[in-house]
């Protein structure tokens, strides 16, 4: 462990802290929409870090990760909205949401432990779809999820009497709803990142890595691969569940549409594009892939106007086209991701390239 108290790293931390505090106000000058996007970027950081435990640390390809986000979001929505007339406090729902997601993680994990790589991928994908289809259809005969309409009027996050929605005056500063959520999310993000870093270097983290590199060898040295793999699913899922709960409170509305397969794929893309298994890389991937489509949304139209004097190509499809191309190009030139862990890039450069695979 590095010594955190030397003056150099102290100034570094202080600078980052100031940047994080000022950021929503700078971004907010472009409109509150950008602060919301910033908040989503942090939510995606949660999700990407959670998935990174499963895919990056333990090497289990999960294509249905968004299901846990959905479980967390719906848990919050059902326990804190007029839909059932329940209004649980934060301290009750957040753990329940994480626990529910965790249970679903084990539920998915236990029958699939025997499966290898891509078989696991398709089963997790199927699991994600099953959850979404149930959310979409559980409105009859008993109305649980309110079907495709989703659940509205979900309670915002409240700590004591302090609500995170709407504008409040603090020390003469007007803080908007999204800005308050931003600070909550940053605080949580720091916590999540610390947990992840500690996990990676713990006994469990090393066991995950051993399973990723060679499962049989891991078994041979006495790792209980079944429990450790289940633990990866469960922990990854609980992060997803917490992120889902906050998503639901922040939006005030959830519907099955937010939890489609493409979302799972996006989170996976964040993990791989950033640098699988490397926490700073994954964070970078999540932030970049959240902002890129949004920046393109604002840039594509005006750039076309400037270049050709009129809108030649539908901006919406052009922006996704560029997004897809960006994924392809990054993978082409940085196959290990934008910011891979040092060990991993060393492995890749030293290894002679095989003919195929």
């Amino acid at each position: 462990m590095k010594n955190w108290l030397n003056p150099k790293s102290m100034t570094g931390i202080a600078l980052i802290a100031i940047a994080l505090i000022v950021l929503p106000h700078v971004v907010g000058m472009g409109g509150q929409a950008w602060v919301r996007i910033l908040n989503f970027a942090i939510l995606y950081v949660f999700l990407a870090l959670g998935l990174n435990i499963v895919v990056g640390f333990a090497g289990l390809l999960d294509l249905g990760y968004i299901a846990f986000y959905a479980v967390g979001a719906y848990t919050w929505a059902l326990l804190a909205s007029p839909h059932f007339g329940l209004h649980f406090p934060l301290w009750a729902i957040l753990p329940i949401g994480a626990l529910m997601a965790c249970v679903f993680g084990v539920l998915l994990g236990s029958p699939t432990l025997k499966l290898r790589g891509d078989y696991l991928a398709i089963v997790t994908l199927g699991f994600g779809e099953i959850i979404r289809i149930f959310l979409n259809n559980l409105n009859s005969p008993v109305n649980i999820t309110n079907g495709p309409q989703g659940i509205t009027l979900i309670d915002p996050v409240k700590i004591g009497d302090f609500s995170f929605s709407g504008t409040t005056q603090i020390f003469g500063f007007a803080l908007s709803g999204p800005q308050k959520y931003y600070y909550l999310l940053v605080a949580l993000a720091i916590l999540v990142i610390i947990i992840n870093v500690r996990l990676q270097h713990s006994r469990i983290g090393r066991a995950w890595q051993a399973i990723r590199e060679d499962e049989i060898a891991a078994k041979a040295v006495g790792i209980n691969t079944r429990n450790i793999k289940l633990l990866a699913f469960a922990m990854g899922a609980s992060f997803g569940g917490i992120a889902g709960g906050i998503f639901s409170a922040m939006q005030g509305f959830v519907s099955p549409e937010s939890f489609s397969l493409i979302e799972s794929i996006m989170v996976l893309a964040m993990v791989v594009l950033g640098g699988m298994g490397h926490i700073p890389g994954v964070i970078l991937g999540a932030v970049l892939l959240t902002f890129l489509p949004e920046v393109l949304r604002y840039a594509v139209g005006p750039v076309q106007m400037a270049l050709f004097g009129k809108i030649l190509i539908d901006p919406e499809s052009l922006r996704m086209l560029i997004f897809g191309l960006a994924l392809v190009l990054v993978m082409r030139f940085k196959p290990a991701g934008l910011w891979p862990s040092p060990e991993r890039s060393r492995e890749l450069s030293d290894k002679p390239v095989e003919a195929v695979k």
Partner: protein
Amino acid sequence: MDIFLQQIINGLVQGSIYALVALGYTMVYGIMGLINFAHGEVVMIGALVSITVTSTLAAAGMPIGLAGLFGLVAAILVCMALGWSLERIAYRPLRGSPRLTPLITAIGMSIVLQNLAMIIWGRNYLTFPPLLPKVNFEVAGAHFTLVQVAIVLLSAAMMSGLVFLVYRTKLGMAMRATAQNPAVASLMGVNINRVIAAAFVVGSALAAVAGVMVGSYYEIAHYQMGFMLGLKAFTAAVLGGIGNLAGAMAGGVLLGVIEALGAGYIGDLTGGFLGSHYQDIFAFVVLIGVLMFKPSGLFGEKTGDRA
């Protein structure tokens, strides 16, 4: 009873389309271990190209049957070129990179192709011109159309052709050798690059045919039609044991029939608790059930823990 027969027929038709698409997935997977997520989009491009060519020619006065044939051929050629370029541009440079890298590239290509199609063909549903006269048959209370018969026959023919290619020709032998061990195959004088390119081109040709079939079956086509179809077809390939041709065909047909029966009977089975909109769940539940007991699919070879 007639519902049963009817659903079997519907499932057979849908299943033979799944099987054709699944073959493309399984060939690529068998040879290079890659889930080609963009394969569903190749199906979509095939359908849209054939619409454009067929309706242009038909508008120019050509009889619809002949125009449809030209449309099919055009779709096959365009998709073959597309499959070849996908491999050449996107996947070949990534050989030897980490396992998930080409997967993300495939997802990227899928997004690119979908949006390219949206730019070219627009975001509206396009109606597919009816290629075959609307003739209805009735056997034992079950109805089916000429289009359905044609789909089943054509896919059977395509699959026999593929089996011939893989098991009776030199290229097929090279493909099987590469699938077993690329390094050794290449030492034996097999041109690996050519074989992989061939797998993509052949798979894309099948996808193009499947695209035209889906289009003429449902009489519409759309830039998003490929994704879910590709997903189902991939599920079918895994169900049969990915990398295995017979498995992909059986898995495709099986998935189609299970889905159709599921949609027909799920209401009765659960006393009306679950309706036919749970059809998609059936496919995945069966998949999970099969994989729990046979972890490498129905026909998959038993592999060690490490392949």
